[in-house]
């Protein structure tokens, strides 16, 4: 069962949340960021080339222009492959674990999987980010040594940074599955 809704992130940009309910014990949330805009790309390229041309008129060395083209190309490739995240997905499977995937604009995907045995809880936390106070969803991991302690806090949706309304939707679904998981593990 699939369903799509539109939210906004902390800066006001548009985000699309796609929810897929594969089964009562397996749900997936997919947040998509706005794509790379042509306007910003053109602006950056023009700035770099103007600067290069300015240097060229000073130094009269044509290597500067080819270097500027090289730098722009490499910079764009590097940005698309390492920096620009297109989509962030959270897949929660009852009794297996939680998986977070980030897909970059160049197609690269980086995945982290946390086993259900290590997950203590999923909560919404507040943080001070630059000059704002924002809400973020995070997964609390159990401490192997201390039964009631928390060893790590893993934030989710770090690049897309949705607002509280979106987070609440995701939070509710996750809590349903976690409650089921706790009931199952508590019963003999």
């Amino acid at each position, binding site marked *: 069962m699939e369903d799509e809704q539109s939210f906004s992130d902390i800066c006001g940009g548009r985000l699309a949340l796609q929810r897929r309910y594969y089964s*009562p014990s*397996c749900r997936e949330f997919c947040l998509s960021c706005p794509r790379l805009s042509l306007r910003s790309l053109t602006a950056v390229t023009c700035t770099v080339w103007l600067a290069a041309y300015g240097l060229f008129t000073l130094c009269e060395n044509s290597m500067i222009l080819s270097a500027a083209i090289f730098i722009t190309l490499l910079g764009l490739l590097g940005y698309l492959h390492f920096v620009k995240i297109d989509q962030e997905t959270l897949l929660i499977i009852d009794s297996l674990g939680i998986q977070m995937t980030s897909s970059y604009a160049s197609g690269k995907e980086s995945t*982290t999987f946390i086993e259900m045995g290590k997950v203590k809880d999923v909560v919404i936390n507040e943080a001070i980010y630059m000059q704002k106070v924002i809400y973020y969803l995070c997964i609390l991991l159990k401490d192997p040594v201390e039964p009631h302690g928390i060893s790590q806090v893993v934030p989710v949706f770090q690049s897309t940074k949705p607002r509280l309304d979106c987070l609440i939707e995701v939070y509710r679904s996750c809590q349903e599955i976690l409650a089921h998981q706790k009931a199952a593990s508590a019963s003999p």
Partner: protein
Amino acid sequence: MGLGSRGAAAAGLGAASAAVRPGPPDAVRHPVPTPPPKGAARASSRPHGMVVKAFFPTCCASADSGLLVGRWVPEQSSAVVLAVVHFPFIPIQVKELLAQVHQAGRVGLAVLGTWCHRRQEAEERLGPFLEGLGAIFSHEPWLQLCRERTSGLWSCKATRQQGPTRPGVKDQVMLVFYDQRQVLLSQLHPPAALPDRQAGDATASAEGLAAVFDTVARSEALFRSDCFDEGPVRLSHWQSEGVEASILAELAKRASGPVCLLLACLLSLISAARTCRVFKLRPLSFIWSKLSVCGQLGHRLEQLALVFSTQKAESPAQLMRKANVLVSVLLDVALGLALLSWLHGKDRIGQLAEALVPVADHVAEALQHLLQWLMGAPAGLKMNRALDQVLGRFFLYHLHLWISYVHLLSPFIEHILWHVGLSACLGLTVALSTLSDIIALLTFHIYCFYVYGARLYCLKICGLSSLWRLFRGKKWNVLRQRVDSCSYDLDQLFIGTLLFTVLLFLLPTTALYYLVFTLLRLLVVAVQGLIHLLVDLVNSLPLYSLGLRLCRPYRLAAGVKFRVLEHEAGRPLRLLMQINPLPYGRVVHAYRLPSCGCHPTHSWGSLCRKLFFGELIYPWRQRGDKQD
């Protein structure tokens, strides 16, 4: 029971008849659960039964019907299916095989259930027969997986002997497909801590998904026989797609034994020769410890001894280390040979030798100019004329001596360089270390100047500090290691104050000489440091691990990732488990080779402190040197 005798008589496919008793009476449910009504998905009346995870190898998805063999992990209620046993079989032999594997790998396998790969409605009579097998191989819960050949639709159920206490509750089955070959060959990082080998029949208690990896790794004995073999039991697993072996690998394994033995003997001879000669002669051992080439050669010798040792590697980490060292040494030698061929072609050694003496002359001339500048009014500062002249003339004479020695050596330089260049065939690192040593030897005069300047400055600072205390009427108590007040005689005070004044006014001159020569020395040290950094890089980079990560990413696993496969309502949830490879940074961090150990031992703070007080700095301390 009639079923027992039928099983013992090697039941065939066509032998199923109406006399076959169905399985446990109360837990049989409809094989295809009715799809839930739309809109009730989020209703609160969800089934709260146990979720049974079945890890199914992708290679068995096309296998014929049979029994599922694997391991049941009760803590995670997951069943790891390892192979499918085909009909006909004799249950006793199946149990014997499982006992053999249990002994070989200390992993408790069992028959987990049945697998049915059928055409639509064609072999309906197989169903009850398969259910009946649950009586021979009793297992809790009993899995029944089924796949239709034409449509490829899956259905599964898990039944328990003792029915759940709450009626209307059912066990859900989640299918997780995994690639058996990849899981068998991969290693998880960090490695799961496994119990001792001696623990009786205790099976692995690895946590979570590491248990799946562990189970597959320990069941190697199961994968030896195949469905195409003539053995009593016909199995289907990852080897059914074709047993993998490589002739080259087998030959290499056979040849490695005697080759390792030979090389190990050779290496032990070399190290014996090295140890007996070095500790005999005092000046030779001193030079040995100062040259970085010798350190590098010793390091390489140790590494080679490790690689060619006749002991088998105990753990996968040791094996990786051996492989890394071997690849690193091979690359080193290859680069060294390339450098050698470049150097010896087109008479470059001759050109280098011809350029060397003029360069040394040029440096000496530059130093002379510098000293003339210091003897005048450097940067507009006014120096003490007499001391300035004395120091300047002393250093100039020293420089003149050095240049004469270099000129004396100049006819022999080409030969020396040619022979030293041959050392590049031992490796690029050896060539770079030799270069660093040559730089150290050629700038020996700068080192001497630095030592003279530092000693002078240090003496001056010591004198100043103790006379400063006298000036204030205190003295240093050596017994109590602190400053105490002291009453001096008048003549002591007079002489002391005079000396203090003299030293104080001569301080700028000495300090300037010290500053200039320290900067020069630091420049040389920086160049040598860069070369050593490069040598360290070649020494410690784990190239085999990086190559493995590039070409066979599943071998080095950081974890797993899941993908949800096509899902239809009413069918069980199917996931594909893939290996999440280790990122490159972590590969380097985990498999980094230990380097030579010649790291700078100072922090920035202590370095500045030593510079200020004029203590000599030794940037590299070899392992085993006494601390000065």
